């Protein structure tokens, strides 16, 4: 990976090992504790179909280098949107502005980071000709429309990304990664008797575009979008109030991302502003709950062979048998807290600073079948699918928004209900989990997590869960 990334990024600019060392040594000339250079090149290609035609396509290349110098917990940061020696020097000069606050450190000997690649390094944009991609969108459109005459609009979009990064740091880190990312989305509108509803489905990952071209894959997305839209045509108003909520498997794991995950990111703990601050080892969930953040799953959207600081990704246990067990760290926060980095240092691009971020966050399965769980509920709702969520990490309050939900009465799904916001409190929501299903699923690969204005791809997952009390924001 390092070799290919170096070839793509550094060699065309005439940058070699000695230029990197020179730039890093320049950073350390000031009173700096740590510094790194992050080279990135990212190609994106996107196609979209609406109203029956592939009306737009786009291509972009962004590349640059971000230079960071850390003194204490202070960070100096600058970047250049071009990769060449002069731009590197200039950015390094600006980043060093932080210098006066640190202690003079020494430049460590380069230690190339080697780790198993979790995905293939070929460029997904080149995996198929443009005519094939355009044809895919048209086929998906025709297929979705053929499923039901009530489908009046279909939007299909395809996105392919090829990204190479090289990280060189004063602690000796020298690492590279080549990351593919593909995604197909289907959105439909269904109309009946003057009522209109939408349905969405899609997915992707760090795998070949050919996977998405497989009819089994895109037909599943199209069917799912159509099913959701038609179901919502029948949906009645959602109830309002505090009630039992059963969450479906897979993407509803966005609960864990919001309620638990963000609150366990190292920066919030270093600053003491998380609702979980100072609570390590405490029980915050029923004892049969274990939650992990795992960047090492092959080809998943949230996976990384190395993070954006060159640390190999890991499987980090966040909650073990109901107790808070671990944080997610980047280098800065790990060092300030006397801990080890956990492979969670991520950044949107060379123009953004790394932060502790999630990868793929999910709950391990329990023992109940999903049917048993629904049958156990006298009165409540079943939320099968969601849009996104949001959390206030300090108060712990979080929301997530159902896009497909059902009313449960007498242990049965009796009617689809309109989407509604669910709100809860992170530190106690998992103490109310009554049953954990045996049907762990990961999401299909659509998540984007936002923090400090930076978006990064993530994954979530969970088995079916019964929560004995969440506030549901319906109108009835």
């Amino acid at each position, binding site marked *: 990976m390092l070799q290919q990334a170096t070839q793509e990024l550094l060699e065309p600019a005439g940058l070699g090992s000695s230029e990197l060392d020179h730039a890093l040594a320049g950073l350390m000339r000031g009173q700096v504790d740590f510094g790194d250079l992050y080279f990135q090149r990212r190609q994106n290609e996107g196609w979209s179909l609406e*109203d029956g035609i592939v009306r737009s396509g786009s291509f972009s290349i962004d590349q640059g280098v971000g230079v960071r110098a850390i003194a204490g917990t202070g960070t100096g940061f600058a970047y250049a949107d071009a990769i060449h020696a002069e731009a590197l020097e200039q950015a390094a000069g600006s980043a060093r502005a932080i210098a006066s606050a640190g202690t003079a450190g020494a430049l460590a000997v380069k230690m190339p980071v080697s780790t198993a690649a979790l995905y293939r390094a070929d460029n997904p944009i080149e995996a198929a000709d443009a005519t094939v991609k355009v044809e895919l969108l048209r086929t998906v459109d025709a297929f979705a429309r053929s499923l039901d005459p009530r489908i009046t609009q279909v939007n299909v979009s395809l996105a392919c990304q090829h990204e190479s990064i090289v990280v060189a740091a004063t602690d000796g880190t020298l690492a590279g990664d080549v990351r593919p990312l593909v995604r197909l989305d289907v959105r439909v509108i269904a109309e009946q008797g003057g009522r209109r509803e939408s349905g969405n489905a899609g997915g992707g990952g760090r795998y070949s575009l050919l996977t998405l071209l497989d009819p089994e894959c895109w037909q599943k997305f199209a069917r799912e979008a159509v099913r959701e839209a038609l179901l919502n045509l029948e949906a009645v108003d959602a109830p309002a109030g505090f009630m039992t909520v059963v969450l479906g498997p897979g993407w509803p794991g966005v609960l864990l991302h919001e309620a638990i995950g963000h609150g366990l990111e190292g920066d919030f703990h270093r600053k003491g502003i998380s609702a979980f601050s100072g609570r390590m080892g405490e029980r915050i969930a029923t004892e049969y709950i274990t939650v992990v953040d795992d960047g090492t799953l092959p080809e998943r959207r949230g996976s990384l062979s190395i993070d954006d600081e060159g640390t190999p990704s890991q499987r980090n246990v966040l909650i073990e048998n109901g107790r808070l067990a671990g944080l997610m760290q980047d280098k800065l926060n790990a060092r300030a807290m006397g801990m080890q980095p956990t492979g969670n240092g991520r950044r949107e691009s060379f123009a953004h600073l790394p932060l502790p971020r999630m990868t793929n966050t999910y709950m391990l399965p329990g023992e109940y079948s999903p049917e048993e769980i629904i049958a156990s509920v006298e009165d409540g709702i079943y939320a099968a699918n969601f849009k996104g969520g949001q959390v206030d990490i300090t108060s712990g309050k979080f929301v997530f928004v159902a896009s497909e939900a059902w009313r449960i009465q007498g242990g049965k799904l009796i009617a689809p209900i309109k989407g509604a916001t669910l709100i809860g409190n992170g530190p106690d929501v998992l103490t109310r989990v009554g049953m954990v299903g045996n049907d762990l699923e990961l999401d299909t690969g659509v998540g984007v997590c936002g923090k400090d204005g930076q978006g990064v791809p993530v994954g979530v997952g969970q088995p079916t869960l019964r929560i004995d009390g969440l506030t549901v924001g319906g109108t009835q």
Partner: protein
Amino acid sequence: MSGKNLQTRTESDLMDAPDRVREWLTELAERVLARARAGGADAAEVSLTSSLGRDVSVRLDEIDTLEEARDHGVAITVYRNRASGSASSGDLSLEALDRTVEQALAIARHTQPDPAGGLADADRMAREIDDFDLWHPKSIEMETLVDRARLIEQAGLNHDPRVDNSEGASVSFDVALGVYANSHGFVGHGRQTRFSQSCVLVAQDKDGMQRDWDWDDRCRFEALADPAATGVRAAERAVRRLGARRPPSGKWPVIYIPEVALGLVRHLVGAASGGNLYRRSSFLIDSIDSQLFPEWVSITEDPHLIGGGRSSSFDDEGVVTRPSPLIEHGRLARYVLGSYSARKLGLETTANAGGVRNLLFAPGTADFDALVRQMDRGLVVTEVMGQGVNLVTGDYSRGASGFWVENGRIAYPVEEITVAGNLRSMFAALEAAGSDIETRRNIQVPSLLIGQMTVAAQSDQSD
């Protein structure tokens, strides 16, 4: 001169000699358009930007980050036999520009002909480019920014003993210049300076922690709020959330404070936008002239507001902009359209390619306290959370926090609640607007009193 040298030159010039940077970007735009024509495009458009900025943040009096930003960008769209292709890059070297044109042309070979596609009509191009007083460049040293951030945070931390932690105070500026040109021969330019400050503080008592923030954002450094005022307001806002309870569930009147009421206007704009209309993804299809709001409501777009955050003589396709009502006597006066969506809908562009410019919701006469008295019993929403807005149906369900009002006075803070309704009925149920208009954003909205929404929360007894 090589592209690389040009890039280095612009960084110092952007502040001192913006006209030279404008000329440079204009030359590049002309080159792009010529290349696109030579490559077989029937029409083309390009926008180029150059910006720089500094951003510092301080936490508990220590420097947290010092950031320097320099960005360039080019976005090109070409049209060929009514099919379009787009490409963009952050590299303005001549080689990269030529490559970006090639990429756009390559894309256009595969997209399908679209009768609604193409540039905006030539006779709609803006003839004059006016100055709306958005350019007040000032290079501020890192040290000065740091000192100001320290003042902001200290004022907040000293304001109340319950404010015992901080997520930091930030001060930043950003200077940006852009050129848009198309093959009708239109060349337009815009430039803007922005100075911002913000502070996020954490307050604590026996019940737990709460954080809140305050901020300001102006195009003139001297117009920024007093640093201490921003810190103190962040402290006050964090402290007043302490001891939050849950309100009684039920159907209640609700006041949205200006920064939250702004979201309601954004949803209106989203549903009135051409893209959502022709995709049949809006609850406002076929709603021109319909009585969405009570008679007294008026919302006007003024693209020519002096000092207005998004003021411009032309929209993102060069079409001349004009002040015009969006809501008049409570009725939807028009949609929000660019050329493409206008053609799809069989209408004319409203010069809103790229979105709305500056919107003004006409304020009422009652101040906030009077609005609270008028409500008597109900909920004040100071924050909403999540994505629970469905523009296809207008269904609205958000997480919220704020204050419970009894006997016309704020009784206690509330959190972990939901507010729900449907945008159409919420708009129709508007009872009053405050006089407290929010001026920091391009969409300026006062506090709004909505007659009734569904409020849900766990009852405090069941804890």
